[in-house]
């Protein structure tokens, strides 16, 4: 029972908004020691865990080239490009991206997107430009909202697309865990097939929310736009 204190440490740290790095570090040490590991074994666990999970940090390798391109106006060009498509609204654009991200992830191409490779340099500026084309410079609140939804479309698309692919981490984790723990012969294909219903739900639910964003924006910004314009002329 006492090892559950580690879970409690995480919840408490979370609730009191401590630095997550510290929370996780302390929870790890506490759980390890309470669970009967020696201090040496706890240290070793930290080392092994770090070493075997390096792949989650490899996206850093894309940052120099993205940073270089941004210096030369990649985001500005993304905006310029999108403003040429008259009928493309923020919601429609993000729904399109959501669908593409789901399909490509389902084909195993999970590295096609991501916050560093695609959202920051391309998707977010394009989503903003689609809104700015119609409503002019976005108020702070809406810029944050559009950027947040750009990241959301990427994440939702990835999560509920990738599991339809056989050789993805989570599917292999399921088969690996079940086949070794319970002596089963689960096939990745069956698991991947059963990820499809949720993937379809995800596209319709999140897509509908993204399209609703357009209507919200039209309501709020059309009204705000009038007052903004008054302020501008008063200057």
């Amino acid at each position, binding site marked *: 029972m006492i*090892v*559950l204190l*580690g879970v409690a440490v*995480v919840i408490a740290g*979370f609730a009191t908004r401590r*630095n997550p*790095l*510290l929370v*996780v*570090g302390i929870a790890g040490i506490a759980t*390890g020691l309470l*669970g009967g*590991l020696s201090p040496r074994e*706890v*240290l*070793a666990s*930290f*080392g*092994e*865990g*770090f*070493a075997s*999970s390096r*792949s989650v940090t*490899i996206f*850093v*390798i894309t940052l*120099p080239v993205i*940073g270089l391109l941004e*210096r*030369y*106006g990649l985001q*500005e*060009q*993304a905006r*310029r490009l999108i403003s040429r498509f008259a009928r493309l609204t923020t919601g429609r654009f993000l729904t399109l991206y959501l669908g593409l991200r789901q399909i490509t992830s389902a084909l*195993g191409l999970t*590295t*096609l*997107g991501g*916050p*560093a490779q695609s*959202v920051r340099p*391309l998707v977010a500026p394009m989503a903003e430009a689609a809104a700015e084309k119609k409503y002019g410079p976005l108020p702070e609140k809406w810029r*944050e909202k559009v950027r*947040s939804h750009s*990241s*959301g479309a990427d994440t939702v698309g990835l999560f509920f697309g990738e*599991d339809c692919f056989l050789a993805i981490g*989570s599917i292999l984790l*399921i088969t690996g865990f079940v086949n070794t723990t319970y002596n089963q012969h*689960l*096939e990745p294909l069956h*698991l991947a097939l*059963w*990820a499809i219903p*949720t993937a379809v739900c*995800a596209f319709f*639910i*999140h897509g509908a929310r993204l399209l609703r964003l357009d209507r919200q924006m039209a309501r709020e910004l059309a009204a705000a736009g009038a007052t903004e314009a008054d302020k501008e002329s008063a200057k």
Partner: protein
Amino acid sequence: MIRAEWFYWLIGAVFLVMAAQMFLDRTNPKRLGTAAFWGLLGVGFVYSTWVVDKSAPSEPLGALVLVMIVLAGFNFTGRGKVSTTTPGQRTASAVRFGSKLFIPALTIPVVAMLCATLVKKIHVGGEPIFQDGSETILGLGVGSLVALAVGMLLLREKKITVPIHAGRNMVEAMGWALLLPQLLAVLGSIFQKTGVGTQVGRITEAVLPSGMIYVSVIVYCLGMALFTIIMGNAFAAFPVMTAAIGWPVLIESGGGDPAVVLAVGMLAGFCGTLCTPMAANYNLVPAALLELKDQYGPIKAQIPTAGALLLCNIAILSLFAF
């Protein structure tokens, strides 16, 4: 054969070069702590190679990780002043280069895709070019390097320090959030080793009324989501909840189809990932990269979808598994 470890060394080297730049950056009030944090991360990336193949002890690496936690956790890291082009310069450059600017950005996924599909099949002297099973991550690495070369040629940028400096700005903006996903993997493995899963299983067994299969479905899905919210990672929650409810209650006594139960159970966990700052790489890192004032912005955008999808997962599991 190109090994995945070589790629990790390259990333380690990039971190070390960035750390040197941070050390020399006098605009950063906390330059020593910052340089130490990223320098240690670089060292850790390289040293891990021998931990993975078990030819070096893992304790020193564990100590190094703890030092990094202290450095970042007690605010010894900061960021320097960003030196970049002005908005006016960028607009002018965008007009000048036009959509050619997309070429290097699109090079990354195209090369990654080619590596994962075509190059994977090429063998030289009976050996694959890329280490088996690492084609995707190596593809990302090769794609990034090719893209960097293409970008520098296209933009006639001669100094390699310029892209590294630009990348460092983004790394500094992300800060400690970049280490959190790896640390959560550590926590998951410690939970596993000390039997947190079996304990949760015992509690749920005691609390759960037996024979009510649909209640168990709800408990399994909600449990996956909640545990994922706490751990930040559905992969860590999955063994815990599956050992607790999924396998014994839903599959063995309830007769559920394992493929449906487990696939949908994992997806219920993903709904939790959408809602938690502990899933730093999906929620906090993008917020930092997009320079949002509200670091919970992406989470707020995702929560309604996560809730609706959790209900969908409960429904799908109830309808199709039994």
